[in-house]
């Protein structure tokens, strides 16, 4: 689960991470009020969307008077912000973060995430802040300092010290840096985050260490422990198809092609997408109906797939293990009648009671194209589209 920068900052602040003074604003008026409340003579107006690269896209602007804040907030609020992470369609900006301007002495990077290879969380720091950290990691991996978090001990002070010395901090800045890192790791751990990234982490001219930006993702499997996160969710930042699918317990991801796919199991769903492409088609979506492929899930699946106007045919690929294919077939027949699907449906059912299932489909009176195997299914569905 993704959240906004201002929400991430509120969370890490509770654990003692230093952040600039700031306020969220949903309107231009609120932005001006926020600036007045924060005080000072310099402000930053930042677009709040669930994607990085906002500065380059024109979503972060400096202002040096409340009037200027009004102007900049007017420019950003409602704009369609396109960054390297939003895709070409961009995102409409609906929220702003207004912050005090900071006199920056040095920009650095710190991030905490899971290192899958070691099955441990890792704190990464780099003097190369403010840029794409993936690029730094690829081109100059020696500039990324790492400290692995012992699962039994947690992140230790000596590790924070090692990182801060590595960042070239000294004196007061070193003390502040150590405090910052320890607090950030506490926030990461306690909030069941899958990512806590501060880029840039800044050293101010006064020697403070601050999170100028903050990105935090929560781990989806741990959301049940944090009912309070529900209020942090911004549905407008999520794909409406995907929100609807997850409400029906389906795992759906929209893609660009025209072959709608409905499959049980994530691996088989990906493999089905792959074979469609090999057969000359393009998948319109990833859709995993999970273990219980019954009439309700199939119906919900049809509805979601058909909302995408690009879909010209549907391929259903179910490998019945514990799920019986005859039950799935009955479900498909019922769902197809309820939803009145007008486009070709190719069905491949394998595994438990597959023959019985084929019979049910053929006797249904509906025009299903029954495929005998994976290859045949992919060929039939691309053929069906070619004939349209």
């Amino acid at each position: 689960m993704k959240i906004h920068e201002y929400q991430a900052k509120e969370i890490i602040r509770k654990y003692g991470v230093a952040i600039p003074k700031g306020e969220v604003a949903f309107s231009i008026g609120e932005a001006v009020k926020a600036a007045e409340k924060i005080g000072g003579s310099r402000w930053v107006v930042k677009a709040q969307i669930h994607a990085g690269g906002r500065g380059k896209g024109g979503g972060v602007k400096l202002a040096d008077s409340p009037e200027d804040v009004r102007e900049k907030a007017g420019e950003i609020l409602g704009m369609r912000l396109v960054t390297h992470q939003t895709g070409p369609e961009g995102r409409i900006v609906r929220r702003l973060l207004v912050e005090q301007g900071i006199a920056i002495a040095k920009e650095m990077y710190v991030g905490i995430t899971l290192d899958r290879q070691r099955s441990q969380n890792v704190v990464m720091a780099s003097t190369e802040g403010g840029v794409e950290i993936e690029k730094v990691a690829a081109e100059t991996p020696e500039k990324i300092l790492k400290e692995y978090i012992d699962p039994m001990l947690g992140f230790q002070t000596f590790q924070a010290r090692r990182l801060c010395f590595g960042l070239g901090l000294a004196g007061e800045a070193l003390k502040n840096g150590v405090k910052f890192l320890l607090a950030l790791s506490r926030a990461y751990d306690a909030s069941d985050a899958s990512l806590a990234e501060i880029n840039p982490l800044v050293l101010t001219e006064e020697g403070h260490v601050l999170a100028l930006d903050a990105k935090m993702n929560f781990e989806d499997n741990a959301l049940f422990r944090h009912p309070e996160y529900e209020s942090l969710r911004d549905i407008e930042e999520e794909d409406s198809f995907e929100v609807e699918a997850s409400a029906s317990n389906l795992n759906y991801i929209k893609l660009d092609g025209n072959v709608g796919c409905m499959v049980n199991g994530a691996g088989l769903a990906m493999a089905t997408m792959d074979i469609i492409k090999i057969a000359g088609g393009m998948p319109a979506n990833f859709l995993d109906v999970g273990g219980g492929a019954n009439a309700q899930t199939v119906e919900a699946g049809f509805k979601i797939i058909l909302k995408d106007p690009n879909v010209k045919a549907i391929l259903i690929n179910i490998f019945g293990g514990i799920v019986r294919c005859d039950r799935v077939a009955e479900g498909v027949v019922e769902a197809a009648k309820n939803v009145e699907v007008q486009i070709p449906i190719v069905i491949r059912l394998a595994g438990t009671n597959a023959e019985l299932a084929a019979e049910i489909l053929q006797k249904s009176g509906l025009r299903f194209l029954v495929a005998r195997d994976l290859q045949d299914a992919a060929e039939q569905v691309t053929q069906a589209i070619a004939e349209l």
Partner: protein
Amino acid sequence: MSILVNKKTRLVVQGITGAEGTFHTKQMIEYGSFVVAGVTPGKGGTFYEGNEKDRFSKSIPIFNTVLEAVRKQRANTSIIFVPAAFAADAILEAADAGVKLIVAITEGIPVNDMVKVYEFIQKKKVRLVGPNCPGVITPGEAKIGIMPGFIHIPGPVGIISRSGTLTYETVDQLTRRGIGQSTCLGIGGDPIIGTRFLDAIKLFNRDKATKVIVMIGEIGGTAEEEAAEFIKAKVRKPVIGFIAGQTAPPGRRMGHAGAIISGGKGTAEEKMKAMRAAGIVIVENPALIGAAVENALKKTQRGKKGHGKGRASRMFSAAHKPSRKSKKLNP
């Protein structure tokens, strides 16, 4: 022979009285797996024969703790059907109780729980398969998992996979060709899993009954690359590989928590390149995995006999009792 599970496996089911646990325990007993105990805290001392929907053919003693199941029933393997919120604790309990193998079926265990579990099982030297996996089956001997037993037949092919139904698809392609499996292992689709490709490959490499290894990977992580390095250096058996998610876009999680291309890492292309470089036969089309395995088997047959005639089907029965010749072939 086989890996991890066989006729001697003495199974304790954690979460046996839940709906999932009951259903699959019935299936496992019917397959012939040796279920010796169940654990449901608070129901110790009773016997369980299933519920109204799923009746067992025998009565299973229930214990409050895994430790009792190990002591009184000599359970050496545990399978876990406990809900995600309590599953990490269940794995820790099994590891502490002294079973040798834990198969965690549960989906959705928080990653931070698994970070601690992973550390603990390293210390305890117990093998964990999963979580979020279909389990392990040695056809004809034991089914410790939720896979449909009937699609499997005994034979010479070892299968390791990150996904459930895609494993079934692979097994089905083999069985239809008359090619059996030594052991099939679903390692799970989560970012942190107990047994990785590398671990499973090592086991299959040592197993005399396994003549060909099939590796079904998917996008995300670097576990396939890690295994490829080992295969290049140490494995002489033919390995067939497939990577699901060749068409998956970066940054989008494809169902499995682990299946995500992030920071340009974990693409299918990268994985296939590393695997090819290790001498693994890469199948790009998932419908052709069975054919590729058949080819590889024919080649090993030819290699053994010194001429090109061997019909694949003939050697499958031979695979059950490995000959001295096969020992020489796979030192």
